[in-house]
């Protein structure tokens, strides 16, 4: 289960081997990913770029355990996901993956700290411990003075920082970010990218980010370009 490759002292936390993903639209077959081979090292910050329809979001969904490949092997954090049931993948995601979406999708009826605490409801933790961890996560993203604010009382950048706090509160190994700066102005986008960089360098989180923004992609140590379901050379 925990087999991984080792390159120069760092192990592969994500390993795709001959991964294909096919969708059916009625009788029409759509080969979104084709025989993809890809590895990502633990603690890396990698970007996925490509035109619309290139398969980057599908690839991100596979890495995050939201979907399974049609064929091939997909190992994330040492776990083979390709044959895993939906229920098991939900547990895997809760333990290993933090999600940052383009639209923040915070629950409007919960405060910032409650939104961050939400994933911890799945863990068997005392309420006080859950709240303490949520507060710590908000401190990491610099929102210690906005804990009791509701999403409507926060700016877009602040909402995205709450989302990042929600992503890291369970201490996942990997953070997947789907266009995390897509709805933000340049200043707020830079703050979010700085924060992701900090999580990568200071907290050793592996970050996989889908983006259309070249400036965002520059923050990544490795940038993968996809085109028509394959990695572009």
């Amino acid at each position, binding site marked *: 289960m925990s087999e991984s490759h080792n390159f120069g002292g760092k192990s592969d936390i994500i390993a795709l081997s001959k991964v294909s993903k096919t969708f059916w639209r009625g009788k029409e077959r759509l080969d979104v990913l084709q025989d993809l081979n890809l590895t990502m090292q633990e603690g890396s910050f990698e970007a996925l770029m490509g035109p619309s329809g290139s398969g980057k979001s599908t690839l991100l969904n596979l890495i995050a355990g*939201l979907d399974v490949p049609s064929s091939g092997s997909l190992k994330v954090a040492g776990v083979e996901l390709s044959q895993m049931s939906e229920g098991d993948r939900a547990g895997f995601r809760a333990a290993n993956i933090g999600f940052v979406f383009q639209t923040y999708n915070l629950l409007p*009826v919960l405060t910032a700290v409650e939104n961050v605490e939400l994933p911890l409801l799945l863990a068997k933790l005392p309420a006080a411990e859950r709240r303490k961890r949520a507060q710590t996560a908000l401190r990491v993203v610099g929102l210690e003075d906005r804990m009791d604010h509701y999403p409507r009382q926060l700016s877009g950048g602040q909402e995205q920082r709450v989302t990042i706090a929600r992503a890291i509160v369970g201490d996942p190994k990997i953070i997947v970010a789907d266009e995390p700066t897509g709805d933000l102005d340049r200043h707020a986008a830079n703050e979010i990218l700085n924060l992701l960089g900090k999580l990568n360098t200071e907290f050793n989180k592996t970050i996989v980010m889908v983006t259309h923004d070249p400036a965002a992609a520059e923050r990544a140590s490795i940038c993968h370009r996809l085109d028509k379901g394959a990695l572009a050379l």
Partner: protein
Amino acid sequence: MTLLGVAVRNIKRSKLRTALTLAVVAIATLFFILLRTVIWSWTSASEFSAKDRIATRHKVSFVMTLPKRYAEEIAQIPGVKAVAYASWFGAKNPKDESDFFATIATDPKTLLDVYHEIQTTPEQKQAWFENRRGALVGDALAKKEGWKVGDKVTLTGSIYPGDWEFFVSGIYTTTTTNVDRSTLYFHWEYMNESLTGARKDQVGWILANISDAGASGRISKEIDAKFGERDLQTVTMSEAALNQSFLGMFSAVLKAVDIVSIVMILIMGLIVGNTIAMGVRERTNEFGVLRAIGFLPKHIAQFVLGEAAAIGLFGGLIGVALGYPFVNALVGRALEENMGNMFPQFRVQPGIAALGLALAIVLAMAAAVLPARKAASLKVVDALRRVG
């Protein structure tokens, strides 16, 4: 914070929609309680009947009269303690003919012996006994008409035509709720002295107090047997049986009330279901995110069902809270005062309130089952695709 707590707080999301839905649940619960109380009060009227009182009437119908001398003969039957007689007079207040109240001609002394629940002061009782035009008026009727002791009251007779003058000798209250407080009793002699021919010396029904409530069946049979060979035969029954036979005439009405109460609460369920379905459709993206961060389909279903349960609970509680004053203080008081013989005790029963609240919660949850299943069965990737 708990999963259920989050579900409950979701009802604050759209305040106007939630307020309107809560209003529907509250109103449905309130009317469920009201209609169920009608059924309960009506069907339990016999429980409040005096067990030691029997009534004798003409065998054919209430409308047909009996000779007054039958009362004297009934008084001779062993086990009978006191006998009174009465006739339905059917007079109206000429100032407002649509205003209904009972006017009954009776013998004052024996009436108060048989109806020991009727209470008035010794002075007023004596004044009524001594004044042939005196009337004893229920406190609810006196309050409604603005009558006081000593007032002269003129009523127009319908069964016994003409203007009839009365003086309010006393105002009575009752010790139990099975005697209504909106009746005007007056001297049967006053009515009888104006009558001639076949209408003279007739009474509508005869009431008797018996010494042993358990012997009511035997004594009733004895009374009817006594007059079985006469031209005018009788039928005698306990007060409870009298109420039940009266109730039988309205069984269709009770059934209709029963059905309406169920239909009303079912409509409430459909409205709640529609509200929940709209909320689920609007929150597809949120459910996608929750699924992504590790929540299972069962958790999503719990969110939806929890929200529905909260709407049912809060709406039901509001309905129950409004139901008590509405039924007890408003409708109940009016019915007890004006129709005390049919609705001797019109009060919300805790069991009915609890049933209303439970139905509000259960039906709200039942109505949310389909939206909950739909939300729980969303594929994560499909739900997230709607994020943007």
